[in-house]
Every structure is written in structure tokens, then in C-alpha cells.
């Protein structure tokens, strides 16, 4: 009876997390934010569901298969999510963020540094291009 209660709690919580992840898939605005709710399904939802079934069946062959399945899901789900994120970034999909929160605390310090770096770098690049490539630049312009 206690085993049924504990496994029912785990399975109910897993179903609830799967529903929350489905809501996130529908409602969230971006690929990268949807990826987060998909990873919610694949880690917490699948973990709680498999844990409930493991508690239900106990130590047997079915329990061993469930542990193996949970291991496979927990290892390969983040791999697939990472591959999707990497391919999306490589294809040029921009994350839908207004500003980067990592540099919000040091933004007052970071802004003049980057501005001074731009001021220093851009004349040097232009001068070096003018010195090095006057002929090839005119050829490229003609072509």
C-alpha cells in the first residue's frame, strides 16, 4: 500500500512536469527558451515517471530495464538539446534577449572600455589596409 502511494506520487508529479513542459513548448517565444522546457520534460518528467515505475516494480528485470532507460534518457537528452542549440547558433539564429544579463552589473565599466578599444582599433585597421592594399583594392573594386 505504501509502495503504491509513493509510486503514485512520483508518477503524478512526473505527469504534472510533462504538462508544464508542454505548456512551455506552446507558449515560449524562442527556440532557446523552448529548448529549456523540452529539457524540463526530458529530465525531470522522465526522471520522476521512471522513478515511480521503479518504486512500483522493485528489484526485478523490469526495474533493471527501467534504470537503463532512465540512464539513456538522462544522458542523451541534453546531448540532443546541446546539438540543436549549437546548430541553431551556427545557422545564425539570434537569441531573443533584450540585453545580456551577464554584463548588466559591470556594464558601466565595460562600456567605456569597448568604446576606447573601438576608437583605437578602427584607425589602425583602416591605415593598414590603405598602406597594404592600394592596388588589390582597386582591382577588387573594378571586378
Amino acid at each position: 500500500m505504501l509502495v503504491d502511494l509513493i509510486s503514485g506520487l512520483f508518477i503524478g508529479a512526473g505527469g504534472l512536469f510533462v504538462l508544464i513542459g508542454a505548456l512551455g513548448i506552446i507558449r515560449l517565444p524562442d527556440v532557446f527558451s523552448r529548448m529549456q522546457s523540452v529539457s524540463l520534460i526530458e529530465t525531470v518528467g522522465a526522471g520522476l515517471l521512471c522513478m515511480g515505475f521503479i518504486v512500483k516494480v522493485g528489484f526485478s528485470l523490469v526495474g533493471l530495464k527501467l534504470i537503463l532507460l532512465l540512464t539513456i534518457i538522462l544522458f542523451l537528452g541534453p546531448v540532443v538539446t546541446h546539438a540543436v542549440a549549437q546548430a541553431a547558433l551556427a545557422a545564425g539564429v539570434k537569441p531573443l534577449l533584450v540585453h545580456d544579463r551577464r554584463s548588466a552589473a559591470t556594464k558601466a565599466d565595460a562600456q567605456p572600455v569597448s568604446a576606447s578599444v573601438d576608437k583605437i582599433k578602427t584607425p589602425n585597421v583602416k591605415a593598414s589596409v590603405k598602406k597594404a592594399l592600394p592596388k588589390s583594392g582597386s582591382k577588387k573594386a573594378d571586378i
Partner: protein
Amino acid sequence: MYLFATIAILIAMCCAVARAVVGPNIFDRMLAANTIGSLAVLLLVCFGFLMGRPEWLDIALTYGLLNTAATLTVLKYYRHGDLSVDADHEKGADDAG
């Protein structure tokens, strides 16, 4: 409680199918397809326990491995345009050694 988990997984699969249909770019569709595969694995487990036949776990294991391999293959094909490319030695382009 098995029935609740099964219905929750079916609702989540419907949401993932809707996202795969209306997804703006290919990565939304690939993510939704991978989500459908993972939810199908969970659905096999839950439905097997609901019907009293937990032998379907073998099919769930096979389906989980195949789903991951299929998603990674399509993503590699979309990124490189070629399945035989060596992603670790992209700049070298010399596979003789």
C-alpha cells in the same frame, strides 16, 4: 495514476505536434520531433504498465536510442551539408593521417 500520466503525455505530444507544424524555422521542428520521440518512449512505458504488459520496455529502449541517432544525424546533415564530414577536423581537411 497511470491513466493520468498517459493522458498528460498524450496532451504534451499534441502540443509538440502543434509546435512542429507552426514552428518558424527548422530547429523548432527538429526540437519538436525530438520531443515527440522522447514522449513516445515515456508513452510506451506508461501504456505498458497501464495494460499490464511491461515487456514493451524493450521497444522503448530501442526507440530512445533510434530517436537520438536520428535527431543527431539530421542536425549534422543540416549543419554541414554532408554526413561524411569530420566535425573534429574541419579546418585540416586532410584525412590521410
